């Protein structure tokens, strides 16, 4: 009797505060584990209209498959990597899937892998999970849960290499007061297809930084989604991508401010070069009625290096309360800035070197925010290699 009353009271309260999903984003379908709630897209749907569905090579059909990526990792003391059932993952409180590939991944992966960092654990070294695909024809469903307990401090890096047709849901559960840094590197071979959703639940007064880096693959579509379990959480969502000829790299962001006094800051930077290079960036911030005192900013910058590229960039902001600290967005897609090049060249620096320097700076500005020295170094090296391979070769 008492329990019933309490539950009823809580439901009423939650309905009033919209803690649950009574009001959903206009741009993101309601979350659901039921694959039937996420029908096969035809390509005109808001969330699919930028994606080349034919090039997903049947990934959305939802065929069963036992294939897996190879996992390679060394775990620090106290950190465990185990297999849990789909239901157990759900009970941990992960965010429900909000598109077809993430729903299929949960439904078909046959359980999840749980990386568990217990409460009050401070890790000195990053935990690196190396996930390698065995071949472009492998169909792989992935379900990963990264759980970092209250007041812990951890850096977790996922490195995707090799090739596969891979759809995955990665849940990041950040305990109260924890400080978590997650980096997801998509460094696939040219023929890989990767549809990923990283769904982050931020605990009370916790801070999380999530960096998505996409270089390789034929089609990579990554979704980063943040919600807050309690007030006071902060999320920084960073991204860096470099699309070469024929590549489609898509990044979709969704910061759902469902709690008061929470923060989100999104910065994604990309460069494109070569015929048919296509990047898509969709930013979305929802400020619910309950989310008073929040602060949010989203920004996307693209550098178009050659003809024949296309960069789509759409920032969105859905606001249901004006009682906030701040909300803003910016998007810019441009070629090299002639004034920057003139400034550098007026100091004797050749045109080629000036371009290299501007591009280096464009990405370095973001790379130095990642906060993991070995990853920053690797990113710098990779960016320089990309530049040397393509941008600068015509100018030699």
């Amino acid at each position, binding site marked *: 009797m008492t329990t019933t009353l309490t539950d009823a009271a809580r439901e009423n309260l939650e309905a009033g505060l919209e803690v649950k999903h009574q009001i959903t984003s206009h741009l993101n379908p309601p979350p659901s584990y039921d694959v039937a709630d996420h029908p096969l897209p035809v390509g005109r749907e808001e969330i699919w209209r930028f994606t080349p569905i034919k090039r997903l090579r049947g990934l959305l059909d939802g065929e069963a498959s036992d294939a897996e990526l190879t996992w390679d990792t060394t775990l620090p003391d106290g950190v465990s990597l185990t297999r849990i059932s789909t239901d157990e993952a759900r009970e941990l409180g992960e965010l429900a899937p909000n598109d077809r590939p993430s729903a299929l991944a949960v439904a078909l992966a046959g359980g999840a892998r749980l990386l568990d960092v217990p409460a009050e654990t401070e890790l000195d070294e990053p935990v690196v999970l190396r996930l390698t695909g065995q071949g472009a024809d492998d169909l792989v469903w992935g379900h990963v849960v990264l759980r970092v307990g209250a007041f812990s401090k951890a850096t977790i890096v996922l490195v995707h290499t090799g090739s596969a047709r891979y759809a995955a849901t990665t849940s990041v559960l950040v305990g109260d007061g924890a400080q978590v840094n997650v980096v997801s590197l998509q460094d696939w071979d040219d023929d890989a297809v990767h549809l990923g959703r990283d769904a982050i639940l931020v605990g009370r007064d916790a801070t999380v930084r999530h960096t998505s880096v996409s270089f390789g693959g034929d089609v990579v579509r990554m979704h980063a989604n943040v919600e807050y379990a309690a007030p006071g959480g902060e999320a920084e969502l960073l991204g860096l991508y470099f699309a070469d000829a024929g590549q489609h790299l898509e990044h979709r962001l969704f910061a759902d401010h469902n709690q008061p006094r929470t923060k989100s800051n999104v910065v994604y930077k990309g460069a494109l070069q070569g015929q048919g290079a296509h990047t898509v960036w969709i930013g979305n911030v929802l400020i619910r009625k309950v989310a008073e005192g929040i602060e949010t900013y989203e920004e996307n910058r693209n550098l178009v290096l050659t003809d024949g590229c296309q960069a789509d960039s759409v920032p969105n902001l859905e606001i249901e309360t004006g009682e906030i600290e701040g909300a803003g967005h910016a998007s810019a897609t441009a070629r090299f800035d002639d004034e920057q090049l003139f*400034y550098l060249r*007026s*100091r*004797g*620096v050749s*045109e080629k070197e000036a371009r290299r320097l501007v591009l280096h*700076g464009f990405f370095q500005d973001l790379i130095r925010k990642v906060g993991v020295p070995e990853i920053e170094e690797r990113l710098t090296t990779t960016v320089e290699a990309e530049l040397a391979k393509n941008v600068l070769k015509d100018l030699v």
Partner: protein
Amino acid sequence: MSTLEIKDLHVSVKTDDGPKEILKGVTLTIKDGETHAIMGPNGSGKSTLAYSVAGHPKYDITGGSVTLDGADVLAMTVDERARAGLFLAMQYPVEVPGVSVSNFLRTAKTALDGEAPKLRTWVKDVNAALQQLNLDPTFGQRSVNEGFSGGEKKRHEVAQLELLNPKVAILDETDSGLDIDALKIVSEGVNRFRAQEGKGVLLITHYTRILRYIEPDFVHVFVDGKIADQGGPELAEALEAEGYDKYLTKTAAV
């Protein structure tokens, strides 16, 4: 040894209504070791002269010549002009996010010399140059011009002038927006540069204030894309007292 010779220079910019002529025949020679001040009201073409000589792509040279020690400057690319010995301190230095001041300075020095500077002496030189201009030691780690105050931008331009040490320096309103302390610091830097043998300076300014600290050998008054008057330092004093009005009225009356 350096002589910058500008002869009958005509420059235009593209506008929606077609090309518009900004410089209408400028002739000016800066000989070995001379400092020339160019003064004039806003819109008279002072900055256009500076940027045209440096090779900014926005400006079309429609006539005349510019030579540095006899070499055809107008035939050179922007970076070739710098390597030939020209330097432009800009009124509005450009931000280059993510590129640190120290990386930028080293890259420029390497480009100018054709080889990387000796690390130990270079670091010492950079630190000394920054210090002389009252710039914090951590300045080298900051992104070029990003988040700099107006004064920091100008002091950074003069630090570059000293470190890159060109033959001829063009200073485009380096004094604008500076308080008196910053103006003194910047002027001292320019004076250290021109105390060396044979360095030429073309100092563009709207105000006479900076000429109290950097005394010019010649003063040219720029009005409507041409030199309207020229003389020695005393001309600056006359301008200080009378302003540009008499030149402007003369133009209007024509």
